[in-house]
């Protein structure tokens, strides 16, 4: 065997500890310390039985006080909190999708943003019933952008993308009244329902949670993904690297962090500009290295092969290397702690979005209209900051792994075409994957997604579960910080095939893929929905019959809950490693873990023991196989 070896969580932690020592020297704070300060957490909050939606409260439920002042019981409070949590997530993804639609609206043949995948635009336009014949591609882009933004506030009807789901799934959504209407309407309707004196019936609140989730997955997120592809190109397999070692000590290091590729794409564009590289050399650096953190990192890795410095709980580490000239952020999952932290170093913490403004940051307001000049200014600011570096504080952990990323649905289908036989098979379908699954060579697929959460030893759940699943011939599709955990450990290297069972290993060899496929950022979980919908159509099975489950073992954000809701509502059983603040109501817990199965043919499983979580996923996959006789 070769010299391939996974990077272990222990090695991650050793590197982090070394960085925290640097932090101590300069008096820096870290999430590790803040977690300790916040522990133990408030039990009422943890159980979801604290309510502060009106000024009669705050109320909390105890055995002595079983109802709030308005008379709402624990079940109503827990379900309302859950719905508001979901609405927050749906709003976040959806606003991201809206920004992308706006960027699409700003495209022009000689502007900052262009249509890089016109074929995909035409395909979506046709789906939406838009005339494409003889139309200028930019006219079409603008028309589609307006229609896309219209999805947020359409007066009648439901989301356009729902038609991509199999008939059976669409019927379920209609029957259960969870087909999402306008995206903003679902968010606002959720907030309405959760207002004092509106809904306190758990079933109604959870039903709306599913609908709000669906407005994200099959609305906002899907628009974000699809139009990002149109703007920046549909991802294709590409080689890159992951972990902090991707930062280069001799170079100007710009770290992009956040979510919206409209910003990061432009930064990458200018960092490649010969003029900027020359300027960096003038300032004493050897060049410019852009690396990423979180989902914006996933976006530019998928499309440009930009290396991934780390995931959510690595964001402070990037600054702690002392070699980060600028950490440029837009929206979502950005620690406000980066402000004070960057002050301990020479690092510029550059915020760019009116949506996410933070103290102790340099705010360079970025918008699609002035993207070019602002991106240039940001890159220049970073370059000029190189001279302020304190060499005695520079330490970049020498650890990185190879990764092959870029597995959009289009790329997966193309990869599958590679194993077809032209004498018997058709191309352009997911049938080869279905054949691998029905024959038993691959047992099933798990979509690994979600965040990091200090409640779980960071990255262990992602990595350990993936190792266990691939050893059991279960293929993984991953996105978000889960994907980055995999990449940093080395699970997205093609050499990781040697950790697989014989079945998955053979598939990796024949298809020339890594066992964990990077499908992108968190909005790109919509790609997984399209993939599963295609698998259902190509196999003639319902989505809920496929031996496929979803898993968010270290989830943290409201977005993750919104994602969970749309994944379950699409018919995919979802496994969580962190409790979603519902333990205070047995009724809500029962609904989420079993009751909603009667509505959408899937439900949640919550299991904090990660080993057991893996066993239960494998068990569920085998049950699903047995049920269809494969």
């Amino acid at each position, binding site marked *: 065997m070769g010299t391939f070896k996974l990077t272990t969580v222990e090695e991650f932690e050793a590197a982090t500890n070394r960085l925290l020592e640097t932090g101590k020297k300069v008096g820096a704070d870290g999430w590790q310390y803040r977690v300790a300060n916040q522990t133990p957490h408030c039990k009422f909050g943890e159980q979801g039985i604290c309510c502060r939606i009106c000024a009669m409260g705050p109320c909390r439920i105890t055995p002595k006080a079983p109802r709030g002042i308005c008379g709402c019981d624990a079940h109503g409070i827990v379900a309302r909190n859950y719905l508001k949590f979901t609405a927050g997530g749906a709003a976040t993804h959806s606003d991201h999708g809206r920004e992308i639609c706006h960027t699409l609206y700003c495209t022009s043949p000689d502007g900052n943003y262009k249509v890089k995948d016109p074929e995909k635009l035409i395909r979506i336009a046709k789906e939406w019933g838009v005339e494409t014949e003889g139309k200028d591609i930019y006219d079409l882009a603008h028309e589609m952008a307006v229609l896309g933004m219209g999805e947020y506030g359409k007066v009648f009807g439901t989301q356009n993308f729902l038609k991509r789901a199999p008939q059976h799934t669409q019927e379920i959504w209609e029957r259960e009244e969870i087909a999402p209407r306008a995206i903003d309407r679902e968010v606002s309707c959720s907030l309405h329902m959760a207002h004092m004196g509106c809904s306190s019936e758990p079933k109604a609140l959870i039903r709306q949670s599913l609908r709000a989730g669906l407005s994200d997955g099959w609305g906002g997120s899907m628009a974000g993904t699809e139009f990002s592809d149109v703007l920046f190109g549909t991802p294709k397999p590409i080689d890159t690297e992951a972990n902090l070692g991707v930062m280069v000590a001799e170079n100007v290091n710009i770290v992009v962090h956040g979510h919206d590729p409209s910003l990061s794409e432009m930064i990458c564009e200018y960092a490649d500009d010969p003029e900027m590289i020359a300027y960096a050399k003038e300032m004493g650096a050897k060049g410019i290295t852009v690396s990423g953190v979180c989902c914006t990192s996933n976006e530019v890795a998928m499309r440009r092969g930009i290396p991934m410095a780390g995931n959510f709980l690595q964001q402070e580490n990037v600054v702690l290397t002392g070699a980060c000239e600028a950490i440029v952020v837009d929206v979502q999952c950005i620690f406000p702690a980066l402000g004070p932290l960057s002050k301990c170093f020479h690092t510029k913490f550059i915020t760019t979005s009116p949506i996410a403004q933070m103290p102790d940051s340099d705010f360079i307001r970025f918008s699609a209209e002035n993207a070019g000049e602002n991106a240039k200014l940001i890159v220049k600011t970073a370059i000029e900051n190189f001279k302020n570096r304190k060499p005695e504080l520079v330490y970049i952990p020498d650890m990185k792994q190879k990764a092959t990323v870029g597995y959009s649905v289009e790329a997966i289908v193309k990869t599958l075409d590679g194993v077809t036989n032209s004498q018997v098979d058709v191309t352009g379908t997911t049938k080869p994957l279905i054949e691998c699954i029905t*024959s*038993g*060579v691959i047992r099933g697929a798990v979509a690994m997604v979600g965040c990091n959460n200090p409640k779980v030893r960071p990255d262990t759940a992602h990595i350990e579960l993936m190792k266990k699943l691939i050893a059991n011939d279960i293929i993984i599709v991953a996105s978000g910080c889960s994907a980055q955990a995999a990449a940093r450990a080395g699970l997205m290297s093609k050499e990781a095939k040697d950790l697989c*069972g014989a079945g998955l290993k053979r598939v990796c060899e024949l298809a020339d893929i890594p066992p964990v496929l990077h499908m992108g950022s968190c909005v790109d979980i919509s790609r997984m929905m399209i993939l599963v919908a295609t698998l259902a159509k190509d196999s003639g099975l319902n989505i809920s019959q496929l031996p496929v489950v979803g898993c968010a073992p270290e989830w943290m954000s409201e977005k993750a809950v919104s994602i969970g809701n749309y994944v379950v509502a699409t018919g995919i059983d979802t496994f969580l490693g962190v409790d979603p603040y519902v333990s205070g109501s047995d009724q809500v817990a029962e609904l989420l873990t079993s009751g909603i199965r009667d509505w959408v043919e899937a439900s949640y499983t919550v299991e904090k023991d990660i080993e057991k979580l893996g066993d239960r996923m494998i068990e569920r996959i085998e049950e699903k196989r047995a049920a269809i006789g494969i």
Partner: protein
Amino acid sequence: MTLFDVVFSGNDAAYGLAEGAIDAAIEKYGADKAVSFPDTAYSLPCYYAVTGTKVNTLGDLKNALGVVKTLMTREQRLNDAFMSGVATALCAEFLEVLKYVDNPTPYEAPCAGHLPDAAIRELGVPLVTGDIPGVAVILGAAPTAEEGVELVKSYQAQGILVTLVGGIIDQCVEMGYKTGANVRVIPLGKDVTAVVHAVSVAVRAALIFGNIQAGDAAGLMKYTMERVPAFVNAFAPLDPVIVAAGAGAIALGFPVITNEETFRVPKSLIVQKDISKFNATSLEARDIKIKVTKIDIPVAFASAFEGEIIRRG
């Protein structure tokens, strides 16, 4: 029944037959009776390659069966199906070697049975140089003798070494089609277990030319997958023993192409209903690319015919 269950049941059947035959042979000849294939330095080549152990007597053979049993795990995983496929091939080898006890010539023309090392050394060089671009293992009877012979001929014309097992042999005889090592169409035997003589060729190629150490099962499978361009054409109906043997072939990296409606596995188990497309399907599945200069002449033309003997009349 899942595909793996079919493999497991075929493996169980083969194991049962081997166990019965070995016990009967020991009963008849005693455990110390010598057992071997003629003209080979590799004992029971498949068993030797996989385990590194040589079998000399019927008693050894009984012990070997115990080792084979350890491969027969029953999880629903490809590894288990692969190992059961290998176990099936080994059981077939045991059944075949028993035919040679007290009988140096259990096979009669046109069947060759076990091939001597010399034949493999002779074929090895053209295999390595690509002069023989592939090895076809044809198993069972084609829907019609014409289709079967047409398929054999198509491979032969491409210089591919063709081995035949089962009904296809009678079909060649029926059509008066010339076979033999000299024309690279080698009928092995009519029992399905004779297929192991084809496996034995691939395995000895790995030992002789690949410098694979006996007992390095993983290295063996890697070598055969990467370097021995073999594939299997199995005609319907497929019984579980054939499917189990097929799993062994796939484990070695050899795709199986069949006209029976069954589970499909990309690049490994391919259903092709049209026999006339077996050739193209197989070559594509095994990534065999043949540079052919078509010469428009009224007879077949290929290196395979180099050893042909022209008889009077």
